[in-house]
């Protein structure tokens, strides 16, 4: 799980072009949206692409993302339970 969390942090940084943020800057339980990383609705959609591309998880309803993308840990738990690749 810790490996997946770390991997996920660098994947998020890459996918969302968070140029000046390092994996250490993102706490495992920090909220991804809201003030923290300054992410917006397009970033949420880009995370949906990341889930499908890297882990074979298809989220059809963008509102599912709201629950899954609460923190990196919640995302990692969801991926572990649902990944197809």
């Amino acid at each position, binding site marked *: 799980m810790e490996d997946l969390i770390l991997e996920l942090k660098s994947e998020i940084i890459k996918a969302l072009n968070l140029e000046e943020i390092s994996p250490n800057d993102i706490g495992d339980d920090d909220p991804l949206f809201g003030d923290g990383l300054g992410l*917006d*609705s*397009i970033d949420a*959609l880009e995370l*949906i*692409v990341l889930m499908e591309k890297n882990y074979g998880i298809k989220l059809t309803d*963008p509102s599912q993302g709201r629950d899954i993308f609460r923190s990196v840990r919640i995302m990692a738990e969801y991926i572990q339970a649902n990944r197809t690749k």
Partner: protein
Amino acid sequence: MISWMGDSIVSPLGFTSEENYQAAKGQRSAVALHSCEGLAEPYHAAIIDKDALARAFEGRCESPKGLTPLEQAAILSIKLAAEGSGICLDSSKTLFVFSSTKGNIELLDAPAGSYEREKLYLWHTAALIARWFGNPNEPIVVSNACVSGACAQIVAMRMIEAGRYETAVVTGADMASRFVVSGFQSLKALAAGQCRPFDVNRSGLNLGEAAATIIYRKHNGSTESSSQISLLAGSIRNDANHISGPSRTAEGAFLALNDILVHAAKEDIAFVCAHGTATPYNDRMETIALRRAGLDGIPTNSLKGCFGHTLGAAGTLESIISVWALREGIALGTCGFEVEDPDCALPVSANNIAANGSYFLKMLSGFGGSNAALLFSKP
């Protein structure tokens, strides 16, 4: 102020303004389920039958060989708009204005080398169309996202009013290519079925394909000019809020409405033809703009349920349909609308209603935070 001389629409609902207007008046929708090789999921959209287009083009113009469907549709719409208008398309006093968001972008799917690379450039498409009619001027290309078709009419008005040209041929055209459809799918912006503008159950938009041309001439104060529809004013305003989401307070759309309202008495506005894409955010934003401008008591419609969102063609297409309705004194119903949304408390109706008044307003909004409003009048 400029005078309306002619118009034509090429869409899945017909290849003339008359056919398209009658379809819209009968609440007919061109939206249907399509699938496309190279797309993960099927989608609902209003798609032109390309074989029928090529046949119509051949019948009215010449061989469509070497012309993309977008170019065929644009040329056909100009040809039909100009017929009977008495306008010389090949005159140096005639300006061509072209509005498109993506032009021939579908060519990116074709093998490199199978087409002239310049066809990917919007100025090339515009020049090809103007040259087809023997026009000697460099055409103007406006690419201002989904408000392009309003901006193109505004530019035509300014160029004519500045005395640079006598006449302007304003054409909007866009196709629902794999490029555009996949992009809107990735934004989760497409409706699962037919779009429902202003309806409480709206869930997204449908894309549409069209080319629509309006011909304008200088308003010369003659009785002939005075007996025509006029474009009185237009305004473009930015929300300065977000590149892909509208302002929560409808800042840009409100300012644009405010700018043009100085030219009309509110009580004489027959109807508002909203952008009405049927995305949750857009329709609510427009409601807020209309409320802030004191226009939320005026019959409001959206034509997206009939034609889909035709992107760079939406501004000209929806202006044409609305002009035809203004002439008849009716506000067209909104195809796809059933149940009012408390957040969109506007006089939207599923059916056509009588609408007295000499003016109508056309609203458009787009990515990049741009908003536009146009004011038309009948004599």
